[in-house]
């Protein structure tokens, strides 16, 4: 197992990050092609919307997994974390534009109302807004200007974003569906690996 992980780590060192950007662009490229060519079934708008939303959530989960993978399995994919994060924002943006354009057909008044009145849309939109500062600062210049500590603090926003995304997915469903609940469970488990348990007091006070 550790040999296998070593091999992946070696490979990861060799693979340039642009390859990862390219690979993560393929699904949306394929979806766009299918959307235009009629390959998404009877309700292409809904299908496209769901697929891009789910892909975004998958990338958020993957991004959250990178630190625990290194901590527990010594698997180092750290180099690709930014690519994963940036691409999750790309997917959520496509998801949002799909809603605006091919689902709502630019009915602005109804969209404005929906954002405030439908809790799952409110939550989804809130998560999107929270992702904007993370996307904007996902570059070396911002990291230098902000300083590593501040930058890291800001990027902890991904924790609530992931939870909001998972809740959004559950709430889209009319009944309790298994798959969205698995996503939220995985997100919560990944967040739990980050909890720093306070060291137990070794001696009772006053002794």
């Amino acid at each position: 197992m550790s040999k296998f992980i070593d091999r992946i780590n070696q490979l990861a060192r060799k693979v340039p990050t642009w390859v990862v950007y390219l690979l993560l662009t393929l699904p949306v490229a394929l979806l766009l092609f299918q959307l235009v060519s009629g390959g998404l079934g009877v309700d292409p708008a809904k299908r496209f919307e769901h697929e891009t939303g789910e892909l975004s959530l998958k990338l958020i989960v993957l991004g959250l997994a990178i630190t625990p993978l290194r901590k527990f399995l010594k698997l180092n994919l750290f180099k690709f974390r930014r690519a994963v994060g940036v691409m999750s924002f790309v997917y959520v943006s496509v998801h949002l534009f799909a809603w605006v354009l091919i689902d709502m057909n630019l009915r602005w008044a109804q969209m404005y109302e929906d954002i405030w009145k439908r809790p799952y849309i409110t939550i989804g939109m809130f998560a999107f807004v929270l992702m904007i500062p993370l996307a904007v600062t996902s570059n070396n210049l911002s990291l230098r200007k902000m300083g590593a500590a501040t930058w890291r603090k800001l990027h902890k926003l991904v924790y609530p974003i992931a939870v909001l995304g998972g809740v959004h997915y559950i709430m889209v469903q009319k009944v309790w569906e298994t798959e969205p609940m698995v996503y939220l469970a995985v997100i919560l488990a990944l967040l739990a690996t980050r909890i720093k348990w306070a060291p137990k007091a070794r001696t009772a006070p006053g002794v």
Partner: protein
Amino acid sequence: MAFRWKNNLTHADVTPEPIWLNRRAVLAGMAGAGALGGSVAAQESLEPNTWEEITSYNNFYEFGTGKSDPSDNAGDMVTDGWEITIDGMVDNPGTFSLTDLTADMTMEERLYRFRCVEAWSMVIPWNGFELADLLNKAGVQSGATHVAFETAVLPDVMPGVRQRVIDFPYVEGLRLDEAMHPLTIMATGVYDRPLANQSGAPIRLVVPWKYGFKSIKSIVRITLTDEQPKTSWNDINAREYGFYSNVNPEVDHPRWSQASERVIGGGLFSARQDTLMFNGYPEVASLYDGMDLSIEF
């Protein structure tokens, strides 16, 4: 009394011809005969969805919650020898074979809008007969006020039932006057073909002015009662799904604005259209005179 409601469209009219005379114009013409109150004539076009669209995008939770689950999973349901029990406040209760039950019913084609509560819609050329004819044959006793319907529960062929995604059997209900309305039909086919299993074979209800979930599928029991029956979605979430569930663009569902709908098969950038009151069947409005439809939704 069949043929009480007509439109001038059949699926044979699926031609480039864009505009047809509204069926309500026909009704207005019939008003003199006392069949129905006349309503305003308007121009519109109703183009039926394809068989492929109608049979591959369904909500039928007995076969799974995904839109394509019913078409993927419903194939094993056997509808030969189907029986329906009619009971409760009727003069002639019993369990009847579908063949016997429908033998003397007058089959018609009804081209109806179909509006799902999830804010999408289709246009479907149903084949069926008026529910009123069936209820008259059963002999509704005085004092009956509502009709309850029940879907088959066949765990062997229904994966959704095995997973218990909701409480089964699926049940629905109408007020008696809604059930007797000429628009309310029992459908056995689409496009002159028997219903596909995922469409609710071999027999289902179609109430075109209500959200689609009221149009219960694969019916095995019809019960006349003197109280409002339990209905499945209302039971799951009463705040979201009312007993009446009439299509109403002014009463929002907490989850979906009902002001507009996406027409399945419409263009990517133009599929969304305004939702019409009672789904474009204003002739049913008088059933709800004096009711506040924002409370009794």
